[in-house]
């Protein structure tokens, strides 16, 4: 999940195409990257990187020993359980809350309403982003002005979950109900009910117009798009697309435990992707010094962006302050669907100007994004609808993107894996397929004529971010992704079924993402050596089930020349691990991983210094390998264990060998994906079956190929869901119609087609050992590839997700 750092409109929102008079922008992105020699290892030279090292927490996970937030319960004998009263009206004002009965119940320790002392009245955003947050401060912990069915109104803490639930039922809330609006187009209307009054938002975002429920409008352009569309030698195509409201549906619900420790500091054990952002946001909200809050992340049962937000933490913290005891809050699955976060549903219009011979002169995308009741991640997600997919076609001279982000009285949205790129990719890749058909061009060659290659300066990525946000492309495996994907799916020799009414087709789509937010990331790590030659690796990076901790170990082990088991990783505890922006924007391996590499190199320098004295050899001759430092010159060696003891207990000199690393960069290299979907459609009924998904991904050097494939397959599964499931639908009062997994279309094992993941190795010189990101890009591609496959099989186009048999049948019948 990615986000833009600041107001993209600071430069007027449009960055003009650089000319030769503006050489500075090119100098910021030199063609040649000054890569340290040790960063580029041939496959045969790698000891730990790109090896199938065992995922370090797996043994605990498969034996049920790993501890997630809820598993800490047993350590707190006086733990209270929280439950939340949520608005039953889509829009209105709380006029009275009667808490008397609840407060008098046995076992109830605290009852909070918006006016309680322990509840902050400051506005904030739940978006877990860097500071200052590029999301509006438009919500309260508990709300009097409620804006959707699910807005938190009151909270209780009680001795057990059942009592808390009973207390919630005993609280009586009266509302004055206001008019509400559910449809984003209607919300944009001048006479629509207005969600935000004057003074109800701080930290407003560019392009806001709350009279029309618009939280933001953004636009960017390079070249002259209108001029290209007006040319008389081009075909102008226009298509429209619609995406679903998708739930993160991570199997571990949002869970957070707050207590005051023995030093009177506030501690949260919490299921989060962003410990440091959460600490800062809580500090601001509760007016507690940052240093007096500690956020610890245990094992996390999936996040996917849903936990790149401070969704629940303020509630247990406020309750624990009020009740003076530890409090845990675990959302219910129902709350997950109606009151946590979801992917922004969008309508996207794509336009292109293409010459007779198939040159794309201009691409123009417009998105209407439904941000729901609040604006967390609203502007930044919408920005990525353009800034992630469009740069793929960096050879196109004119490009424009605009988005309106609109409030409705529907559940809140937020960051979700792909972060706007899935919506934009559906529109762009579906659109290009249609154009290629119309002009009788090969859909792959048509794309290949315009897509990026190594050495390109990607100006489209800079289009929304202003000056300096362009990127130089230094690794690109698109050609190989396409070739290997074609071969795996059988692109050139597809067999048609024997039955006349069945038709088979393959659709394809391409995608690019980023790797971290350019210029808005920070990761840090430190390494301490133990006497026995083992190491403690402390890193801010956040493993939410992705395997990031294992990748950190492999990177450190590669530098230190030791066994992975000799590195003990401790991550994501704001008291004890260095700073990190958190697990989002596909940044963890690239940013936090590079910080680990630097920390390991720092420690290695000290190790070699000690070895040089112990072996009486110059440092230049020494290298770490297999738990030893070896002299290339004499063949002499000393073990890391000997160095560990000598450095700490030495006779003449003593030193604790420590290494530290911190990493931040202006770079954000794109990973790439080529998706292929093989489908069989029954022309009589519209029913379809997806036979196989193939996705080839260029993620640079995969630090752990098995884990990287897992990321690709899981992302493709999520992408498949976006193509075939309804997501979270809402009723006419904006209430989510899904209350548990059996009503939500998460594809099960029998419903999921086989997924073949292919890793295409390239070398990204700016990443640790050549790595770039992997986990988001395959989230973007199944909806367009499936739409294109259906088009190929039976000649009809489904633009509105999900693809269903009814829609295909209706289209076949000409409706």
């Amino acid at each position, binding site marked *: 999940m990615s986000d833009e750092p600041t107001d993209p409109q600071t430069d007027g929102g449009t960055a003009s195409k650089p000319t030769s008079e503006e050489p500075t922008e090119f100098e910021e992105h030199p063609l040649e990257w000054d890569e340290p020699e040790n960063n580029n290892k041939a*496959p*045969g030279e*790698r000891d*730990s990187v*790109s*090896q*199938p090292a*065992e*995922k370090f*927490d*797996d*043994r605990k996970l*498969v*034996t*049920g*020993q*790993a*501890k997630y937030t*809820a*598993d800490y*319960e*047993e350590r707190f004998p006086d733990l209270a359980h929280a439950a939340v009263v949520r608005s039953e009206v889509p829009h209105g004002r709380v006029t009275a809350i009667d808490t008397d009965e609840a407060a008098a119940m046995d076992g109830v320790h605290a009852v909070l309403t918006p006016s309680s002392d322990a509840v902050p009245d400051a506005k904030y955003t739940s978006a877990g982003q860097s500071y200052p947050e590029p999301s509006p401060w438009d919500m309260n912990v508990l709300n009097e002005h409620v804006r959707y069915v699910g807005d938190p109104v009151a909270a209780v803490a009680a001795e057990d979950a059942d009592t808390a639930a009973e207390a919630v039922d005993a609280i009586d809330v009266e509302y004055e109900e206001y008019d509400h609006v559910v449809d984003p187009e209607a919300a944009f209307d001048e006479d629509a009910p207005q969600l935000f009054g004057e003074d109800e938002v701080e930290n407003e975002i560019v392009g806001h117009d709350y009279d029309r429920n618009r939280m933001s409008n953004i636009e960017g352009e390079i070249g002259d798009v209108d001029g290209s569309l007006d040319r008389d030698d081009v075909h102008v195509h226009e298509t429209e697309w619609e995406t679903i409201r998708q739930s993160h*549906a*991570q*199997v*571990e619900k949002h869970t957070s435990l707050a207590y005051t420790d023995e030093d009177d500091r506030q501690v949260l054990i919490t299921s989060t992707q962003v410990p440091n952002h959460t600490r800062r946001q809580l500090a601001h909200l509760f007016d507690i010094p940052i240093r007096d809050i500690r956020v610890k992340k245990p*094992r*996390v*049962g*999936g996040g*996917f962006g849903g936990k790149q937000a401070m969704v629940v933490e303020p509630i247990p913290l406020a309750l624990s302050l009020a009740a003076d005891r530890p409090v845990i809050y675990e959302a219910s*699955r129902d709350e997950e669907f109606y009151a946590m976060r979801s992917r922004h549903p969008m309508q996207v219009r794509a336009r292109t100007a293409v010459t007779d011979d198939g040159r794309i002169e201009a691409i123009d995308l417009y998105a209407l994004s439904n941000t729901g009741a609040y604006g967390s991640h609203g502007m930044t997600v919408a920005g990525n609808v353009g800034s992630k997919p469009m740069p793929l076609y960096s050879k196109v001279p004119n490009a424009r993107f605009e988005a309106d982000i609109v409030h409705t009285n529907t559940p809140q949205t937020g960051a979700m894996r792909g972060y706007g790129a899935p919506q934009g990719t559906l529109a762009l890749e579906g659109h290009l397929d249609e154009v290629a058909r119309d002009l009788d061009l090969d859909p792959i060659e048509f794309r290949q004529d315009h897509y990026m290659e190594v050495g390109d300066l990607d100006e489209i990525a800079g289009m929304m971010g202003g000056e300096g946000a362009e990127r130089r492309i230094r690794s690109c495996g698109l050609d190989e992704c396409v070739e290997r994907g074609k071969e*795996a799916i059988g692109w050139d020799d597809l067999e048609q079924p024997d039955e006349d009414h069945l038709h088979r087709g393959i659709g394809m789509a391409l995608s690019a993402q980023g790797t971290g937010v350019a210029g808005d990331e920070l990761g840090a790590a430190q390494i301490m050596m133990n006497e026995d030659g083992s190491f403690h690796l402390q890193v801010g990076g956040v493993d939410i*089930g*992705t*395997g990031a901790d294992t990748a950190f170990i492999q990177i450190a082990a590669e530098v230190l020349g030791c066994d992975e088991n000799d590195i003990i990783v401790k991550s994501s505890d704001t008291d004890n691990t260095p700073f990190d922006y958190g697990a989002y924007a596909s940044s963890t391996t690239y940013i936090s991983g590079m910080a680990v590499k630097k920390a390991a190199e720092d420690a290695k320098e000290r190790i070699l210094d000690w070895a040089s004295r112990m072996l009486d050899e110059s440092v230049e001759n020494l290298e770490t390998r297999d738990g030893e430092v070896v002299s290339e010159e004499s063949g002499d060696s000393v073990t890391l264990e000997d160095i560990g003891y000598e450095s700490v207990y030495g006779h003449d000199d003593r030193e604790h060998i420590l290494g530290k690393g911190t990493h931040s960069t202006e770079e954000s290299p794109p990973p790439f994906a080529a998706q292929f979907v093989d489908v069989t459609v029954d022309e009589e009924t519209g029913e379809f079956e997806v036979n196989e998904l193939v996705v080839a991904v260029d993620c640079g*050097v*995969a630090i*752990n*190929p*098995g884990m990287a*494939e*897992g990321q690709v397959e*899981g992302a*493709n*599964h999520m992408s498949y869901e976006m193509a075939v499931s309804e997501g979270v639908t809402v009723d006419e009062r904006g209430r989510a119609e899904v209350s*548990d*997994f*059996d009503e939500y279309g*998460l594809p*099960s*094992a*029998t419903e*999921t087609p*086989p*997924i073949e993941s*292919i*890793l*295409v*190795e390239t070398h990204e010189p700016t990443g640790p050992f050549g790595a770039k990101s992997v986990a988001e890009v395959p989230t973007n591609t199944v909806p367009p590839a499936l739409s294109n496959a259906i088009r190929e099989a039976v000649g009809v186009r489904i633009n509105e997700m999900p693809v269903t048999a009814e829609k295909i049948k209706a289209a076949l019948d000409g409706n």
Partner: protein
Amino acid sequence: MEIKLTINDESKTVEVEPDDDLATVLRQNGYTGVKCGCDSGVCGASKVFVDDEVKMACGVDAPNADGSEIRTIEALGTQDDLHPIQEAFVDHFAVQCGFCIPGMIIEAESLLADTPDPSEAEVREAIDDNLCRCTGYQKPVEAILDAADRMRGEQSVAADGGSQIRPDQADCTDHDGDTNE
């Protein structure tokens, strides 16, 4: 009220409320490998054996379990001595966040006890009510098929790397991870 349970071969008398479900009771008694991902017995994360039958523990009323024999994930292998199914999950990188995994492994154990040589379709059918958000099921299915081979004493067919580092896997460009055919 008190009920008697045999949990992982240990007899226990546990205190329960009349409306407690079995998942809550097991978790309160330290069996936190039993996970809860939904509200109504539909995600599979809380699967355990109740008298040799796989049940979603959150859907079993604790008082009704009185006298029954329970087996949880904690009864399978240990970290140092994994059960072959657990070992296959590790070797195939079939675990991401791990939250769904105990329930899935319990279901796999039940499948392989009845069907030692299942087809891929049978594996998918067996874990159809074990929801996983992370993996897309590809690697868990591969792991269960491989576990079946291991348990029948056949050579592991893992192509996704074993628990040991294998130098021949160094070049990830040759790594297609496709073991399901």
